[in-house]
């Protein structure tokens, strides 16, 4: 048995250490730290998982990336939409938080669920008011930005005669536009919640599938489950309140920044002699064109 444990240790030593994003306490140990504040905005009645498939570079249209997103909502239409790994990470943190504090080991446990998500965006609909939505996102090192505005109007043209089964639900088709793209969506009136992935809303049923007509963005329902637990939103105390236009501008600037520009943004926080001199802009294909 001892030899087996030795062998397994040898295997781990011989292979590369994974590059995780774990927090290590200076001096070691498992101290308590302040947990991120979260506000409960509703009780979750329905949880829907979507697969988001998109083209990150329009010059390479055969290369797709995928991401799992989750929409948690109540029957009154209050909902939070975010990346699934981020939701799980938040759930674990919330479950392990006591009196506003969380242990370092528990925080690292939560970090394990975070993935290399394209977007850190969180969209809360029918919040803070019924006809509003709130967007929150950590943008590089610039900080967390948030803005609130009226729910978008997609100008939906519903074609009730077109039906399709999606995820076992009978769905109808609608077409609409927002922020420079045209979309076709499939919604079901059997789930009478006017909501959907991303900013999609305003139809008399839940949107289960959506795709941009330029074939660059696709949302597909992966599962529909009875919701449990609260629908929470990270506190906005530390978020910089701005407008939608400024938010999109800051996000584009961050996404397109070259490696050298990103390194420069660290300033004196970076202590490596391995500073990147790559000035080539990165490719960014935003879903909101304007």
């Amino acid at each position: 048995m001892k030899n087996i444990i030795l062998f397994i240790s040898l295997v781990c030593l011989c292979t590369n250490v994974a590059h995780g994003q774990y927090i290590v306490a200076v001096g070691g140990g498992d101290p308590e730290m302040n947990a991120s504040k979260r506000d409960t905005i509703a009780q979750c009645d329905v949880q829907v998982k979507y697969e988001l498939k998109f083209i990150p570079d329009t010059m390479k249209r055969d290369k797709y990336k995928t991401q799992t997103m989750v929409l948690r909502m109540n029957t009154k239409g209050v909902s939070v939409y975010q990346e699934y790994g981020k939701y799980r990470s938040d759930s674990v943190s919330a479950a392990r938080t006591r009196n506003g504090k969380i242990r370092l080991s528990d925080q690292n446990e939560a970090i394990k669920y975070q993935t290399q998500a394209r977007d850190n965006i969180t969209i809360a609909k029918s919040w803070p008011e019924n006809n509003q939505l709130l967007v929150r996102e950590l943008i590089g090192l610039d900080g967390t930005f948030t803005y609130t505005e009226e729910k978008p109007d997609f100008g939906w043209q519903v074609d009730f005669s077109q039906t399709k089964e999606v995820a076992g639900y009978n769905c109808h088709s609608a077409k609409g536009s927002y922020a420079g793209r045209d979309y076709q969506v499939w919604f079901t009136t059997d789930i009478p919640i006017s909501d959907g992935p991303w900013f999609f809303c305003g139809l008399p049923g839940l949107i289960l599938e959506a795709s941009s007509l330029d074939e660059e963005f696709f949302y597909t329902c992966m599962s529909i489950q009875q919701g449990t637990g609260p629908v929470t939103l990270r506190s906005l105390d530390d978020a910089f309140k701005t407008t939608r236009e400024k938010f999109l501008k800051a996000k584009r600037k961050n996404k397109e920044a070259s490696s050298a520009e990103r390194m420069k943004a660290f300033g004196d926080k970076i202590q490596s002699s391995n500073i990147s001199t790559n000035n080539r802009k990165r490719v960014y294909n935003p879903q909101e064109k304007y």
Partner: protein
Amino acid sequence: MFTIRKKNISILIALWVWNTISMMSQTVISGVIREASNRQAMPEVVCMLTDASGNTMLDYGFTDKEGKYSLRTTHEGDSLILTTRMMSYRTVTLRLPNQSQTKDILMQDDNFKLKEVVVKADPITQRGDTINYNVAALKSAKDVAIVDVIKKLPGVEVSESGKISYQGKAINKFYIEGMDMLGGKYSLATTTVPVDAVASIQVLENHQPIRALEETQLSERAAMNLKLKKGKKLRPVGQATLGGGLSDEHFKFLGAISALHLNEKGQSLLSLKGNNSGTQLANELIEHTYQTGSVFGTLPYTPTALVSPSEGYLPPIPAQNGIFNESYMGTYNRLFKLKKDWEIKVNGSYLDEQLENQQKETTIYDVTGENPLTIISNQASESHHRQSNLSFQFTKNATKQYVNNQLRLTGDWSEAYSQLTGTNPSQQDFEQPFFLVENKLNYIGKTKSNQFAFNSYLRYQSQPQEVCFSDGDSLMQNQQRDEKRFYTTNDIQMAYYSGPSELSLTAGFKLETNRIRSSMNEVPEFLKDSVTSSQWNYLEAGVFVRPSYVFKGKGYNINLTVPLIWQKTDAGKQGSDKQSFHHFVWTPSLRFYWKFHHFWEFMATGSYKHSPTSYMNLNDTYYYKNRNLLQRGIDGLGMDKQTQGSLNLYYRNPFHAFWSRLNMTYTQNKSDLISGYDFIGTQPIYTWQMANRSYKQFNVRGNVGKIVDAIQTNLDVSIGYSHTLYTQYQQKTLRETRSNQGYFIFNSNTRITSWWDWELTWNSVVSHNNGYETLWNHQLATNMTFSFGKWTFIPKLDYTRNQLDASQFKDAALLHAALRYKLKTWSIDLQCDNLLDTQEYVVRTFNGINQYDQLYVLRPRQIMVKIRFMF
């Protein structure tokens, strides 16, 4: 002024009238929606207005904070349908007359049960040239390593040795997350990576692995890529297994640990395995994609043994049923991704495998003749393979430049022992070492309109081998056979591109030297006047040019290659004059490929080869390969002429999960050199003769693979037929043989219920030669998987029925069962093999002249307990 003002007022009045009329023709349905229990207003209720049929939505909206709604339509029908919906409330549907009205609604509480759904991923999707097989949709409870799923993929075949083919063609690369760490030894990964670690298996059709050739040199072969699940990418993935059991009162063990680790800087795979319970580890080290890429042909990855026990015909049953082994293997593989396009690979392995085999063979030579000769050979053999391999590879794979250099060292210290009883009894000891060093260098440089390539291959191998025969305690004969071979080919290529045409010219040379020393002590009486000890020296040199033309049309291409080789062979026995031969060889080939539809491909090939026979047969020395095989060469080189043509049709439709192919091949070969057996008493001698030999074969094969969703079944059907006419030589007589063979293979994998999977394979082979009996061999393999929560039960049956003659059949049934208890990362298996304790497997074959009856001793009943940990 007065006129303009009057005109404006007229327009305004007209607009007001038109608007009023419009509003008057509009129907407005409005009201307040409240909860029935407490009369409270209900916001966010979905309200829809449709026509009387319910098929056309006229308007929709939502109630506000005060529960108010308002819907409008200009529909002209007599009635309308108003529907109000909200989760946890009963839906209200009302038929209303088509007139404006106020309709207040009360909504009742309801125990609304959401229909929960988990969407199963499509098992197969396609994106461009990449077909994705979703592992979660295709795996079953009994699958452990990813090879268990690869075997089920429609369009994909995995041979007994682990070689993977797609649409009948061997894959040219095996990647894990886009990196090729193992080269052709990908069985190390397919038998190691746990099935639960893999998200999808990708087949990259028409894959050109060399980036500099992507736009110019098409490939009709595919590559395979494993995509791991997200959580498995930055940490070690693998499994550790420990097992123990009993078989025929002997202790059986199994131990294995394998770990794969990858990140953006590279990959590594470490594997340590050992067992004596029937798993042959040498198969995991087989190099499946090896080639030296020369007009002079490809050398085997490892040299063929000069002396070895007779292996006979391998039974067509899973090898595990007939292997008696004690095997150990260690391998470490590492790929370093350096700066962009550069990588270094290091691969090392050590194998120590002992195999025992018991077989009885009764051969009736010239069975239909007047004086048939029967030789009975009962052999109990043990072989001990010890082999170590080390290779270093450096590669730069950029769009304009490709550089690859691989250095390999192989050392082998194998030996074998065999006890023969029967017609020619003896005990044999074999020493079969060899040492090999090899280097391959490839360079390709590319500009916009032309390309330059340089290839160099070098190999040196030494095989000092020996076999000793003893009859009882005294030494009868000792045969030594020592070969030292040096081989090199080098060529340069220039290619020029213009529009759809590519013209290339390759020129190069080959140099080969070989020294074969053969020595037989204690020469038997019948060989006293023959040459039994000698040293032969060979030198073969050749130069060649190979012009090639490719035309690429829309969806098709034509490839014509005309290699011209001048070859000189010098052969001389030490102490005698040297013989020299000069030959001019040409081997043109033509290939036409046409993708005439998104799902259809067609390929036609034709080739001709006119070349001398191998110089290795140019010797006058008798030597023993083993007790039952004495060999001798011939005093000259013959000439071979081969013509081959094939037609191939492929259909694949990933959207309907349907693959099929049809291949027809015709081969004709003529030579003035033929080999076969002569006999001195009961001693067969394998020899060569100058005589005309002809060989003609027509072969047709078809395959269909389909996932039938309606019955949750993965189907695979193959059918083939070959007709062969050929000349055979035996005991100074030439005979014409006519052979017909057909086969049918059916395989199905069905998910009968969520807890019951059933796999069935039926394999029938029929052969008929020269008016002899028609012999049928049937094989049925079936297994069921029953899953209940954490428990899985897998009974399995392997049944064979072999025809020996018109009225005699030999049946063999092997029954196995396994019970598994599986947690998230642990599983415990209780495995019972050959529950019926079937002892032997018998098969008869006929080659047109001789009848071979083989009997193999099978592994006895075995019970094992295995604990597996997956990480």
